[in-house]
């Protein structure tokens, strides 16, 4: 009930949901206040993608972001931490349907990584966004969870982020 009241007070704030749909699947959903074509644009233009894929609150940058968004085209993202390159993720686009669907591979390991599918569904000027990751095996998804690395971002960053913001909250330095 408290949660319901809170959401009434902040109607503009959309919340992402994450679900492990099966042994091999993770599904993320979120509504964005804007038409599908703008969401698609922000997902497929490197200069826009760079601005949101790595949240500002994280001490991580994306110095290289190459995207050749067409069927068979490749992408490559290089992450840096403290000026040092720390990780590279790459893959290719399997399906490109402007404004509604984008499918890409995540080729990090030898055995092949997850296949990601983004679908966009527009309704009354808002867009329901679904990111579906299908892993090659249960073991592959378990290992991704164990290592904390999914979608090319180790999520310990979140913890670091929390520590840093706690530090800010302690008082004047």
């Amino acid at each position, binding site marked *: 009930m408290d949660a319901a009241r809170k959401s009434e007070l902040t109607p503009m704030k959309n919340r992402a949901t994450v679900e492990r749909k099966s042994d091999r699947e993770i599904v993320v959903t979120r509504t964005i206040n804007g038409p599908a074509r703008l969401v698609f644009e922000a997902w497929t233009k490197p200069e826009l993608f760079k601005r949101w894929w790595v949240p500002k*609150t994280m001490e991580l940058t994306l110095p290289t972001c190459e995207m050749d968004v067409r069927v068979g085209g490749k992408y490559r993202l290089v992450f840096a931490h403290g000026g040092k390159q720390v990780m590279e993720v790459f893959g290719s686009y399997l399906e490109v349907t402007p404004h509604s669907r984008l499918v890409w591979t995540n080729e990090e390991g030898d055995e092949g990584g997850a296949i990601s599918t983004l679908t966009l569904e527009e309704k009354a000027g808002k867009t329901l966004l679904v990111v579906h990751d299908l892993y090659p095996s249960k073991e592959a998804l378990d290992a991704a969870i*164990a290592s904390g690395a999914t979608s090319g971002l180790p999520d310990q960053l979140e913890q670091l982020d929390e520590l840093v913001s706690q530090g800010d909250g302690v*008082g004047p330095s």
Partner: protein
Amino acid sequence: MRYTLNHMVQSSRARLDTSFAALSDATRRGVLEQLGRSDASITDLAEKFHMTLTGMKKHVGVLEQAGLVATEKVGRVRTCRLGPRRLEDETAWLERYRRLWDARFDELDQVVEELKRKEKTDGRSKKE
């Protein structure tokens, strides 16, 4: 207090670097995937990944330091399994993963908002 926090942030950064280093290599990610299926000796892993025992020992050492792999020597065989971080509750992981996406989407909201405004302005200036 301040010192403690800074210290915590620093050691957290060090851990982060260690994890990045551990995960930045395709063989090491493959080893984690393999150990997700079953425990294995260093010899098994070296064979599986077509590398020397010394090379595999180095990789396992890096993973062990990051807490991703634990090893135990029984007799002459060193057995590897997924490390303590593996034991993390999946629900907690899902919640952290959700927050990562939420943070991303908060920024995406701003980008889309800006594109909307830009379209409006462009539309207006075309009419004028």
